[in-house]
């Protein structure tokens, strides 16, 4: 039971990160039916920028840890928004009406470019997270939860609520949904479709920046390759929830985190220790395969017939 609860907590933490990253995939897909495979790299850039700032502040100032992390995050957000905007303008906009394979290949190319640029800026060595956050541990029915875990879960819930409010309660949000449902008609209504698409990329990138800080501080390191696997898993989460669906991305992210953590926790017991918890990464892709075979539209995916 302790293992179960512990893995549930770990899974929720990781799942929160997946959910926030998955939102970036699903928003862009919802609006232009593009899988932005460079999105994981945006998360990585966020972590790298934040860690650079946080490391410098921790070494050179006596600011309280919370302020340092906040400044680091606030520095990462505009950097990632800039990268997201640049991706849209330079990599995807011209290919908007090209066959779907073209922007997909471009996305993979862009992700390689971003990784290499990051390697040139920050080197191949991982950046460490300075030991500034107190490693407070709370005990809970035999399981433990750290301060960082609580912060990650709370932050991502706030982000999800905030995004939902933007999408469902603001003029920009209505325009985004209208554009995703019928871009031509949205244009007829006076919506500058290019602007809305760029805004979608930028919002996704801002979420990715925060996700980068969250995942980096959870594992304590940031590295130029950290975005690929995380990005792929978040993509699995988005597909699991139903790509294009916001609630789906949130649910898919959380579920994927939990499945992964429970899988890693119990795989040894179930296989007589033939497989260990180092097989954790397998579960995301097993889930992806399962979804594609049994429910290609995802858990909350829209039935095709709903498009009038």
């Amino acid at each position, binding site marked *: 039971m302790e293992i179960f609860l512990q893995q549930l907590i770990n899974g929720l933490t990781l799942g929160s990160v997946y959910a926030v990253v998955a939102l970036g995939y699903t928003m862009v897909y919802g609006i232009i039916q593009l899988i932005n495979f460079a999105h994981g790299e945006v998360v990585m850039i966020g972590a790298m920028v934040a860690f650079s700032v946080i490391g410098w502040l921790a070494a050179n100032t006596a600011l309280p840890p919370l302020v340092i992390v906040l400044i680091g995050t606030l520095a990462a957000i505009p950097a990632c928004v800039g990268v997201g905007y640049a991706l849209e303008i330079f990599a995807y906009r011209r290919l908007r009406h090209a066959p779907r394979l073209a922007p997909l290949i471009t996305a993979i190319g862009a992700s390689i470019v971003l990784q290499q640029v990051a390697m040139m800026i920050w080197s191949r060595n991982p950046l460490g997270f300075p030991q500034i956050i107190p490693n407070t541990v709370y005990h809970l029915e035999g399981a433990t939860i750290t301060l960082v875990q609580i912060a990650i879960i709370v932050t991502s819930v706030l982000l999800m609520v905030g995004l939902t409010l933007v999408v469902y309660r603001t*003029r920009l949000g*209505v*325009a985004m*949904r*209208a554009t995703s*449902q*019928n871009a*031509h*008609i*949205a*244009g*007829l*209504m*006076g*919506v*500058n*479709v290019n602007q809305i698409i760029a805004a979608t990329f930028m919002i996704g990138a801002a979420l990715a920046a925060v996700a980068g800080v969250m995942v980096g501080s959870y594992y304590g390191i940031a590295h130029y390759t950290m975005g690929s696997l995380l990005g792929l898993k978040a993509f699995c989460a988005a597909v699991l929830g139903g790509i294009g669906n916001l609630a789906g991305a949130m649910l898919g992210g959380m579920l994927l985190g939990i499945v992964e953590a429970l899988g890693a926790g119990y795989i040894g017991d179930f296989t007589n220790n033939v497989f260990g918890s180092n097989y954790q990464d397998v579960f995301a892709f097993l889930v992806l395969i399962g979804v594609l075979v049994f429910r290609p539209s995802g858990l909350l995916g*829209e039935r095709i017939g*709903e*498009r*009038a």
Partner: protein
Amino acid sequence: MLEVSGLRVSYGGINAVKGIDFAVRAGEMVTLIGANGAGKTTTLKALTGLLRPVAGAVRYNGEDIVAVPVYQRVKMGIALVPEGRGIFPRLTVEENLDMGGYVRNDVAAIRADRDHVYALFPRLAERRRQTGGTLSGGEQQMLAIGRAMMSRPRLLLLDEPSMGLAPLMVQKIFATIRAIAAEGVTIMLVEQNARLALEVCQRGYVMESGEITLHDNAQALLANPQVRRAYLGEDA
């Protein structure tokens, strides 16, 4: 108000509109009739900017608007009720209407206009929280017209508003169009139902395979034997 000259539009490699001229004066109701595939919808798409003409000029209040992007033409006062209605299926009725008023900032006036649409179409008021995709065809057509009115257009373009609707609903829709015209909105109506269109409008243009072959007063066109034979389903 609207002057089109030498308009040529290609659509999917086909010359759908082959150099047409027509004009709509302020306050008029003008119809463009013709068979399926004559180029009527393509013409409207060029007027709204959804398609870029190959040649020709589209003058709106004296200004050539060919290079003006789609989303800015709404602000100039041109609104389209598209063929097939183009309702946003997963936005609510109210959100669809709000999208119609997207270019405006006067919140109070937008709300007043929304209430005006609801007064015009009480059925929409009943369904304001429902998504557009759940409405019937007639309700969607009401919503499409209401949505276009939310931008306070001076020129309203309607593409096949009677399509797929029951006769009673068609009557209701056309009564509404007439009421909108009475409010001073200039109307250009594209219709396959030529009799209905000519009965409502003052002037008409007849389009045949990308060219305008006839134009006259609506009454005269209704009496024209050629039109009667080709579009009003009568034996000569």
